[in-house]
């Protein structure tokens, strides 16, 4: 059964149609990549799925439940976390406070402590800097914090928007290693990336977006060898 299923979704910004009736699905345990150029609508799709934007038409189902009109703050507690583009950590709060906000929907303190330990284990640098203000972290550390914060809600699926954006190559590799670890830990991943090569290298399947439409879909391996994808997105 698909964990997340989007059917004929259309999204408008005013009169401009950003998403032109797309459908895709994510199965449990998969790593799915949405790739495409700037402005293709990748971020809009994630914002619509997590409820920050309401679609004009179409249906979004999460574990069989219709969440098309569910407000964003309720979707989190259903088990969907979203690492937004540009990280959007709370700069004026400490690393620890950011992580605690990630667990905002959880009430069991002991479980939360367990998750916090797990997050610190995965991101030792966050533990070293737990009392530092998030705004003073480097870009890569902020990305780790954004991911750690999302993991604090103990999600079944995690949506990641351009996690490699603006990071040095070393950090990019580290972040992608972590995404694979998260996936291996049993969390389903929906990854939006401009760095198509990297994204395809860790994804099971991928969807290629062009100005609000899905133009290509298939196993990540096949897309990697596909001539048109290579030309358009992999820079070969």
């Amino acid at each position, binding site marked *: 059964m698909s964990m997340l299923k989007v059917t004929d979704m259309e999204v408008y910004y005013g009169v401009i149609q950003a998403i032109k009736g797309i459908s895709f699905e994510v199965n449990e345990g998969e790593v799915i990549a949405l790739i495409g150029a700037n402005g293709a609508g990748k971020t809009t799709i994630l914002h619509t799925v997590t409820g920050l934007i309401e679609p004009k038409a179409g249906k979004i189902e999460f574990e069989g439940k219709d969440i098309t009109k569910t407000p964003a703050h309720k979707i989190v507690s259903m088990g969907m976390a979203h690492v937004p583009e540009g990280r959007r950590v*709370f700069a004026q709060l400490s690393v620890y406070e950011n992580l605690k906000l990630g667990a905002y929907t959880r009430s069991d303190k002991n479980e939360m402590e367990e998750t916090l330990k797990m997050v610190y284990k995965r991101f030792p640098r966050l533990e070293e800097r737990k009392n530092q203000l998030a705004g003073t972290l480097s870009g890569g550390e902020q990305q780790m914090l954004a991911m750690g914060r999302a993991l604090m809600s103990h999600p079944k699926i995690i949506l990641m928007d351009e996690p490699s954006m603006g990071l040095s190559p070393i950090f990019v590799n580290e972040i992608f290693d972590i995404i694979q670890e998260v996936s291996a830990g049993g969390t389903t991943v929906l990854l939006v990336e401009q760095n198509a090569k990297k994204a395809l290298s860790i994804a099971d399947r991928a969807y290629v977006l062009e100005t609000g439409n899905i133009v290509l879909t298939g196993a990540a391996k096949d897309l990697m060898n596909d001539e048109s994808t290579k030309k358009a997105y992999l820079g070969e």
Partner: protein
Amino acid sequence: MSFLSYLINGISLGSVYAIIALGYSMVYGIAKMLNFAHGDVIMIGGFVVFTATSATGMNPLLAVLLSVVVCTVLGVVIEKVAYRPLRNASPLAVLITAIGVSYLLQNVALLMFGANPKSFTSVVKVPALNLVGGDLIISGETIVTIVSCLVIMAALSMFMKTKPGQAMLAVSEDKGAAQLMGVNVNATISLTFAIGSGLAAIAGVLLCSAYPSLTPYTGSMPGIKAFVAAVFGGIGSIPGALIGGLILGVIEILSKAYISSQLSDAIVFGVLIIVLLVKPTGILGKKISEKV
């Protein structure tokens, strides 16, 4: 010795400004709007206490409690009815609506209570403090006002460390990201209005106890000055509201005492203009960081 007593009076008036400024500042920080009706909530708070004590002979402390409850509810209702439908409207529309709500409250009070000033009986029963052999007298109102302000500041600072407090800080920084954490933004904004308006009721009682004349316009000038205090200290900042309020109160009382009581307001607002020219974000204002 008179300087010291002016200074203490200034701190007392400044404490009231600080409590009002907190409401302005918190609402601005979280809802990103200037609630110009905030000053009139103070006046409503005063009238609730006045009516309860004079008409029904209610115990003053109970009356204050009632006034806090009424103003808290009023604040939440104002937000829900007047501001929430404009959540995605232009800031100018919200600002004009806030001014409209301010006039509405004033005129409703005018209809209900008339324009004649009511003489407000102080609810403070604390005896005055005689210091330095009677040379320095600190009134009970002054003591209660300063202590209330300190208690409120301490309580609020502690509240900000709790879960709803952290949610407030998250919403004030980034509404979208806060929603992604599971924070209900509307509920958080309601809570902010509730706290700000409850504090306005307390400020109203303290103000009317110190300056016992109550009219439908009682809240408007202190409201504007508290807004100045909030901007002065750095709008959006809780310690900024305290510092801004205290400085403003002291400037006002000292200029009344030593320069001219007619010019004191001009001096207060003149200082604001200078501060804004030199440091537009206020004393403790945060730098607005560019988003990457």
